[in-house]
């Protein structure tokens, strides 16, 4: 499902026009950007948490050339599904995609 299909689905479910849905979705994403940009964690109930995590700096060694590189620390966005969602997914078949 891509962005367009998502908007179409939302419009249908909420009885709103696609334009309205688009602006709402954009506002939501904006909110996400603001909060995550400040390093905050966003928790969506029964869905999961969006969390900014710090990956520490590390020393990597190129296996072929043995060149040692110091990889700087970085912040990554991590999503952790909620246990409710996990339970719901338990019975889903293996997805071959």
């Amino acid at each position: 499902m891509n962005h367009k299909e998502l908007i179409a689905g939302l419009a249908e479910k909420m009885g709103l026009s696609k334009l309205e849905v688009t602006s709402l979705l954009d506002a939501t994403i904006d909110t996400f950007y603001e909060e995550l940009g400040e390093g905050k964690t966003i928790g969506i109930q029964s869905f999961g948490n969006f969390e900014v995590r710090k990956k520490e700096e590390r020393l990597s060694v190129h296996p072929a050339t043995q060149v040692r590189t110091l990889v700087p620390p970085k912040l990554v966005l991590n999503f952790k599904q909620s246990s409710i969602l996990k339970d719901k997914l338990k019975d889903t078949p293996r997805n071959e995609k």
Partner: protein
Amino acid sequence: MKNSKISSHEIVDVLSAKASISKRAAEDFIKVLFTLIEDELLAGESVKIKNLGTFKLQWNEPRKSVNVQTGQEIILSGYNKVVFNPDEKLKELVNQPFAHLEAVVIGADPITPISTQDAIQEEDGEDEDATIFDPLKVFSEQATEIKDLLSEINSINNTVSDETDEIEVPIELPTQTVDEVEMVEVAIEVTSQMEPISDPVEEVVENLVEIVPEQEQQPEQEQQPAEQPEEIISDVVEQEVTQEQEPVKDDVPTKELEMVADPTDEVVQAPSMENVSPPPTATIVSPPVKRSKNKVLVLLAVLVGVVGLVAGLYFLVPPVKQLVDSKLHGDSEKVAEAVVPVKPQVEPVEVVADSSEADSSEVENEATVDSLQLLFDSERTYDTFIATERMKPGTRLAKIALHYYGCRDFWVYIYEANKLKFPNPDEIPVGAIVKVPKVDARLIDASNPRCMKKARELHDLYKKKR
């Protein structure tokens, strides 16, 4: 980092304010949005939201595990898991505080001066890598040729040594030949190490030849105080050293090792003797040269050996290097003079003259480099400032350095100027004002590896101090 958690209620609040809709509508929207995503995921589809990222299912294979209490093996069945792959934009936004950091290669620092042995080994490796270069190929081929020649000479040397002893008795050389035979053995090792020094680039080859005059000076300096008679030999040695090295250089482009080497040997020998050594010594040394070809070979080998030893000494013992360098400037002219008379007869001699010129330029180079070293060692004072910066969240000294000096590594100088105010470079409070000092342009030359090295040294120093 503020790690407060925002619940969906707060998201709803913000959203309702942003889109100017009621909270109820906003709550509905969020709910519907995520249930829709959930439904799609449960149906096994992935969901892609523009600018946010992709939600999809990831299958985790069943795996064996052990019940910690009973020790029984159990099998955890495979399951699906929702993974979220954030959009590139979002990733960058999240990582912004650390965005200015770059991966740093450690260990393979080409700037650090290492002992010659190491350097040679490194260059060896480069040689192998760079065999694509035609001139290098030619040169390495010739290097092996020369090596073979030397080992041949060495073997001949051993067999002939008896004979040469007899010949040289009147010339008071017996003890020296024995010594020199030993030297040759050592020297051949040294030269075999030296040869790879010649790098893919021809410049380096030229450098090698530039070294030659320096080496010529050295035997004199070393042996003069020790033994007078040897000086005669060393003089001859010097002359032949030039002969030896010239062909090596000329070969690179022309491939005429033997053709060039032979004439130079014979032609240069006589006149050079007259030029450098007093008449009696000329008579002493020249007979053996004419008497047997082997003798010439022996001498040749000895000379190569001496060159090798001296070069090794030159590189390995810094004081010697300095001594030679200091004397070199004056002496190199002498060498040029001594060789010039031979010019009409032998072409390669020009090389020596050239190289001595190049050599003096090298000396000048070193002079500037040394002034740089002085600059490094001297206490830096910061009186004038080119700018002031207010620290914002995410601002780093490295960033400021990148802006004003063109390279993030020079942040150390900003830190030095602000050291009294902020002793810890990593904990400069937000809102604090940092002065950006005016630093000598030679210190912050990003294209000069020595500046970079100095900056890194300071970096290590300040980071370690914490």
